[in-house]
């Protein structure tokens, strides 16, 4: 029973959504949109579980004096301060409907001077990692890797002033061999062909996966039977 009802729910919700695409009439037409709002609401409640888990994990570390316990204090403190600053709109206009990110409020300050630099810098690490990954991965180890390398190299060169000048001497009839032209050809023809094959494959994969879930063939995600 406990396992049957969820499978039935999945079946009904999934198949109704698929059918509803073909039925514009109310209430089917908007079902997809409504359901994603439902999901957002469920996610808020679930967030309490997540936040609780975070606090439990770090609380345990502090309590058991795990070797990195002082860092757990930082996490818990950061969470609490940010939450209080936001929920109570400290330094901003109070009330439920006031603007959350009002300039000068504590939440906005924390967002600007703590959250943003951390986020932007973590993102910026990519600049380093793309360089080290290119050095290691772009090697002509075999035929496949050589093709990958050549495509990447043409595109890379096409975007540097140096690469542009490298082939700018080519006479007009051969202008298609100029690196920027070659780069845009790669992007718009073979690259697009590969992308399309991948996308069609993904679509078929999603269809079969969705059917397995809706038909109840796949129910791993429902978890343990016995409780």
């Amino acid at each position, binding site marked *: 029973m406990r396992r049957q009802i969820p499978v039935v729910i999945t079946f009904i919700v999934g198949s109704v959504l698929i059918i509803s695409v073909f039925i514009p009439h109310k209430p089917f037409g908007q079902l997809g949109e409504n359901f994603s709002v439902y999901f957002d609401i469920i996610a808020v409640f679930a967030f309490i579980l997540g936040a609780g888990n975070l606090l439990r994990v770090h609380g345990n570390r502090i309590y058991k004096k795990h070797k990195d316990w002082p860092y757990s204090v930082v996490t818990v403190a950061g969470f609490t301060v940010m939450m209080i600053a936001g929920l109570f709109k400290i330094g901003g206009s109070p009330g439920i409907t006031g603007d959350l990110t009002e300039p000068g409020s504590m939440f906005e300050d924390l967002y600007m001077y703590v959250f943003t630099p951390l986020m932007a810098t973590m993102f910026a690490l990519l*600049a380093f990692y*793309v360089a080290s990954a290119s050095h290691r991965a772009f090697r002509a180890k075999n035929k496949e890797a050589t093709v990958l390398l050549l495509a990447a*190299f043409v595109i*890379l060169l096409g975007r540097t002033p140096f690469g542009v000048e490298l082939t700018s001497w080519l006479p007009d009839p051969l202008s298609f061999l100029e690196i920027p032209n070659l780069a845009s050809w790669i992007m718009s023809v073979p690259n697009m062909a590969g992308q399309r094959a991948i996308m069609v494959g993904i679509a078929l994969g999603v269809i079969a996966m969705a059917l397995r879930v809706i038909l109840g063939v796949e129910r791993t995600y429902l978890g343990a039977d016995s409780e």
Partner: protein
Amino acid sequence: MKFFEKLMSIDRRVIFLFVGVALIVPLFLDIEQTIEITPEVQTLYDAFMELPPGSKVLMAFDYDPPSAPELQPQAITGLRLCFDRNLKVIIIGLWPMGPMQANLALETVFSEENYFDKEPIYGVDYVNLGYSPGNELVIQRMGSSIPATFPRDFRGTSIEEIPLMRGIVNFSNFDYVFNLSAGYPGTVEWVQFAVDRFHARMGAANTAVQAPLVYPYIGTGQLTGLSGGMKGAAEFEKLTGFIGKGTKFMLSQSFAHMIVVFFIIIGNLAYFVTRGREEKKTG
């Protein structure tokens, strides 16, 4: 060949160091770069120059801090160009952080030495209407009524009290739309709604990742001009004569690109030298 074996397994931190240096050093250099103006940026600039003084320009800031390095210089150049030519600027944002970026850009513009005919006055020469949620639907709503879409500016002043907003009903009251975009919602949506439906004249500045997606609109005339990525920023600065960060950043970026190309070549060279010895087999 110990040397090449070392190059093969070079410590990633050495690469990191090179990338860092390549990006930092150019910021302190004063190298004359040859920046060739591409037609898209030229037409963008021309569109601004064709506007008679007093024309109203809608600037949409659709990006957030992570995309600021590419778009902020273009925003600053756009604003300076408008103030320099006595164009009125109305700022909005489809991204929550957009109008804040606009304020930062205005701050930069006013903090530098300018030769404007007169100091721009808030509410008369420019206004920031803030952010409105709803993505492309905001553009659609603006098509029927701008006062209804943006009843207040970002400071909370009712737009009836803002002199610049008097008589502005919909897109027909703007002479030009300039969109700074880092993704969705952005230039694609502005073209679809403001240009295709409401006949606005529009130009755009995009991040390098976005630019190829909107490139086709130039051919069709839906966009009068496009400035893409750091290179576009540098070109735009060169045309307007307001040399700013775009030009400087462009140099850093070129250096970094060359470093990446350099390491790929080194990696392959080392690979072939060491492999060639082992198995005499190359592909």
